[in-house]
């Protein structure tokens, strides 16, 4: 009886005090909301950009286990090609490349995280396809990496084209788009072949090295890292054919229906390519002294504002803090065995596909 009274009294006390706190908090929140509505107004437009600015951090969905693109170091920091583009977005939108919160995502949950607003932008080696664009509520932006399925053969075979592989055994992972592409391309060209199917790369690699198959097909970025590993461990020299049998354009993805945010992300990312084209890098962009009006526009020195919702010096922030496209590429991709020269990732003036609309 006594105890019941005690709890009743204390519960009442707690409720009263909690109500006081809640009333104070509620009052404060209302004032804040009113102030926000007063000077903002943009928030009505849906505003991921405003939300990101208010939170002062870009939440970026990444891969935490893909060599070259997204890895976590022993000190818990993220690095990689995709990760650097998260930093590019933060530098462009917030002026500080370090204001990124990384959310590691699996392939299964990535689009849901984007739709539910858990992340602001998804940069996780995600291939742009019609179905994903149409059905996942996602907007795919500027392609930052053109990957594609390639073919690796032991250099001793002397094979250089797919036609050389007639009647050969070809190692491939089961149930992947890789397997479907292989069948489609070889079928269309009328090249006979025997697929040798494996469950994972850990089984495939020894089989390939023992000569169970003459060719190994996978994404060229993966083949390159296996080529480096096999040769590095004293195995036979390998050759990756120049021919690419599928298109895998990878780039940042945002949620459908917020063009303001999409533009801010896309132009921040494209600034890295534009700087490369202008010959500007992290070392010299701050000290540009020429009079090219396009470059002056790009640098915002004449207070040129195209109305993208970015500060006029966003390009300087992006390139000084993270680098131009070539610097980002060279930092991560050659280490997994892919080069820029001759690849679609080269700048358009050198025969690649990296072409951005003019900044004027």
């Amino acid at each position, binding site marked *: 009886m006594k105890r019941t009274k005690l709890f009743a009294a204390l519960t009442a006390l*707690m409720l009263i005090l909690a109500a006081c706190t809640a009333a104070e908090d509620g009052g404060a929140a209302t004032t804040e909301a009113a102030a926000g509505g007063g000077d903002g107004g943009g928030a009505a437009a849906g505003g991921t950009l405003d939300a990101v600015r208010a939170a002062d951090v870009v939440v970026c969905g990444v891969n935490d286990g893909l060599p070259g693109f997204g890895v976590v170091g022993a000190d818990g920091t993220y690095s990689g090609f995709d990760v650097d583009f998260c930093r590019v977005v933060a530098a462009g939108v917030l002026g500080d490349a370090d204001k990124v919160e990384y959310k590691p995502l699996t392939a299964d949950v990535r689009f849901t995280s984007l739709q539910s607003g858990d992340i602001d932008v998804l940069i996780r080696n995600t291939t742009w396809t019609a179905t994903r664009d149409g059905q996942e509520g996602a907007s795919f932006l500027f392609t930052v990496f053109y990957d594609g399925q390639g073919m690796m053969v032991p250099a001793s075979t002397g094979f250089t084209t797919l036609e050389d592989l007639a009647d050969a055994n070809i190692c491939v992972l089961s149930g992947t788009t890789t397997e479907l592409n292989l069948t489609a391309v070889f079928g269309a060209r009328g090249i006979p072949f025997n697929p040798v199917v494996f469950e994972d790369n850990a089984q495939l690699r020894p089989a390939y090295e023992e000569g169970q198959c003459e060719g190994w097909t996978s994404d060229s970025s993966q083949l390159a890292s296996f080529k480096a590993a096999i040769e590095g461990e004293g195995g036979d020299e390998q050759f990756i054919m120049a021919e690419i049998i599928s298109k895998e354009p990878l780039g940042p993805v945002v949620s459908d229906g917020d063009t303001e945010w999409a533009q801010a992300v896309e132009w921040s990312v494209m600034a890295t390519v534009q700087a490369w084209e202008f010959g500007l890098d992290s070392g010299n962009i701050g000290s540009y002294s020429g009079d090219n009006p396009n470059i002056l526009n790009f640098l915002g020195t004449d207070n040129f504002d195209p109305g993208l919702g970015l500060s006029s010096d966003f390009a300087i922030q992006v390139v000084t803090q993270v680098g131009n496209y070539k610097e980002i590429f060279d930092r991560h991709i050659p280490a997994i065995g892919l080069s820029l020269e001759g690849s679609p990732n080269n700048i358009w003036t050198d025969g690649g596909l990296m072409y951005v609309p003019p900044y004027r």
Partner: protein
Amino acid sequence: MTTTAPAPPRETSLDWVKKNLFRNWWSGLISVILLPLSLYLAYRALRFLFVTGQWDAVRVNLTLFMQGTFSRDEQWRLISQIMIFALAFGIGLGTNSAASHDRAQDAGLDVERGTIAGTLARMWSLVAFIGLLLFFATTDDMGNLINPFLFVGGGLVMGAVGYQARRLPRRFRNVGWLLTMTFLVIGFQIVSGFDAGGWVPLGIIFGVSAYSIAPVDRFEASWLRGALRFAAALIVVLAIRAVYAAVDTPGIGWDDWSGLHLTLMVSAIAIVLAFPLGLLLALARRSTLPALRIMATAYIEVIRGVPLITLLFMGQFILGFVVPQDVTLSAITRAIAVMTFFSAAYIAEIVRGGLQALPKGQTEAGQALGLAPPPIMRRIVLPQALTAVIPAMVGQFISLFKDSSLLSIIAVLEFLGVRKIIHAQEAFRGVGIAETLVFVAIGYWAFAFAMSRESQRLERRLRVSR
């Protein structure tokens, strides 16, 4: 006069070998085959551990295994959190041990006294795991070297303090529990932050304590005593509220937990929440009210019929669309919720098993004494039913602990998932794969085994004091 039986001849080790290994020809044959084989396997295992193993993948990434991607600038929060939890557990166990020892003595039973050496011996798997961590810790991260010692040492000291609390006057006997609860709350808030609104848990704990120990015995009028008690509680609660308002420091929440820290925290929280929920479900399923019974049965059968991995995915995909738009639940919060709801269904069935095993006469005896249903349940039925199902219950807790490794599939970086990101690092691509797996396995085993041992002890002690 007492007669003592003649002492049996002392058994020599040779006798033991004869009796247990070479009792007859076939047991001798089995021994001859198995002994060298097990010795050889032990040799290979030790050789792998100390000679051939490429442990660099573990050594370099030890902090990653322990704390994952938690910001290294905020690392002090995690370390303090573990330390404070160690203090809480130490003093909680110490107090509990002292209390149960006193109770057993009051009942005229002779029970072993808890000792520091005994506690360490009981927890030998954890001690061994900490030893393994020290073996891997490099000299340049002194924090990693010192922390396990502080952790164990702090826990033991507080255990001793808690044990001594029984010497205090009766009124202050519960100071151990007060400290345990305070440490638990502060341990959480050192990560989640001491916001102005965070005073409520400590307010409740200290308010209740102030109410019950306020020195008002010398006043005659009961209304005066009540008013004074209430005033004391109010003053304490207001003081705590004022302190929180003055400090008002935000933290970083639990969304950044990862690694072993995440595994332990998520498991502990889920276990603590799932137990009462499971208990309520079990009682509801045996209720005489059809609506309650049907709902509880439906819940239990649906949850038990669906794989955990499916529920985890549903938690990620569906919860986001069910809760209001402006409520954002982190992946970890959702995971804790799913693990709790999942385990509660299994615990309910385990508890129901215990309730059904109890003879009906127990309840009837209580009724014959004129007790109301709640005291019968609380004082007669549940203590016996729960004691009977301790092994099954701890088995469920252990499996919950190991099931937390499924969280990496929904991109929550737990202990096992750290392996994957380590082998994406340039230095460890395809290097030390077996070693990291063995390390993780030892880590899980150390905790699961300690839980199992502790449950056996609890079982023994509850049997004794019955």
